[in-house]
């Protein structure tokens, strides 16, 4: 849902129509495989004689496209894990800085305070809070990874269905079974804007609670 749809929902607009539009797009994407799944291809006589499709050249390696997409998905996860490791280490350092600066402050207060030392401590303290905030923001930014991963899985799923359909049509039975489907509905339309749907979600929850 984008903001206009949320507004439409809040003002009682036609949200179902919008959702249906999105679903139609998804349906159109997976239609060939659904046709195949009904097992009617071989039995249904065609009213007009189609031109015989030319069988594409067999790829050098089986599942080359799938393999590549799968690798992209895997590498993105690995890369993100690595960056998260670095960030977590930085976070630990910043947390330690905060502890030490507080300790230093307490100890110095018991003796004579020098103005510049106070300034340094203040800066040290402020900056560690800032570093901590920045690191948390950077970590939160990695939510894109889950969304991109699901988008890639959707592409892989569509390609697998297309592959199954084409191979069935062309008489090649060397197709792997479907991988488990674990991407969100309408994931291809998902943006990376944070909390875009929050007001809308809260509104739906309130409506639900009131009706129960």
């Amino acid at each position: 849902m984008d903001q206009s749809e949320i507004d439409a929902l809040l003002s009682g607009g036609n949200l179902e129509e919008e959702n249906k539009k999105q679903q139609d797009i998804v349906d159109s994407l997976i239609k060939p495989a659904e046709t195949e799944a009904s097992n009617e291809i071989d039995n249904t006589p065609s009213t007009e004689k189609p031109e015989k499709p030319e069988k594409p050249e067999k790829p050098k390696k089986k599942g080359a496209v799938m393999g590549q997409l799968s690798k992209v998905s895997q590498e993105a996860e690995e890369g993100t894990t690595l960056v998260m490791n670095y960030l977590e280490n930085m976070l630990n350092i910043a947390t330690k800085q905060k502890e030490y600066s507080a300790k230093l402050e307490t100890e110095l207060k018991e003796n004579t305070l020098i103005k510049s030392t106070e300034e340094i401590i203040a800066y040290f303290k402020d900056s560690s809070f800032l570093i901590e905030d920045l690191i948390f923001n950077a970590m939160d930014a990695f939510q894109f990874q889950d969304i991109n991963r699901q988008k890639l899985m959707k592409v892989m799923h569509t390609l697998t269905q297309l592959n199954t359909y084409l191979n069935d049509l062309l008489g090649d039975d060397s197709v792997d079974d479907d991988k488990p489907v674990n991407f969100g509905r309408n994931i291809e339309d998902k943006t990376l804007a944070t909390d875009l749907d929050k007001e809308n979600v809260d509104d739906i929850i309130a409506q639900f609670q009131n009706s129960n």
Partner: protein
Amino acid sequence: MKFLVVDDSSTMRRIIKNTLQRIGYTDLAEAEHGKDALEKMDGIDIILTDWNMPEMDGLEFVKTVRTTNKTIPILMVTTNAAKDDIVDALKNGVNNYIVKPFTPETLKEKVESVLK
């Protein structure tokens, strides 16, 4: 207060866990999918679960938990933003709902609201 964070993305699990730690919750368990989570329910006080996962998805997991436990607070954290999905989750026993990507403030607010 022991949390169970269920998500097939290890990155998402870490983001959620770090945010929870920052707002003061340190007793955290994690699971990769619904089936995995069902085996880790011992001593859990609140569940944060993703929807789209292999093996057993979040909705199936919630339904299974609710057959034996009607009271444990459950927060759904997912990319699914359609109204039908949100209502479906609520009907099946989810207490509150967060759409990814979210801000730490939203997570804090929602966790506090289900713990009230």
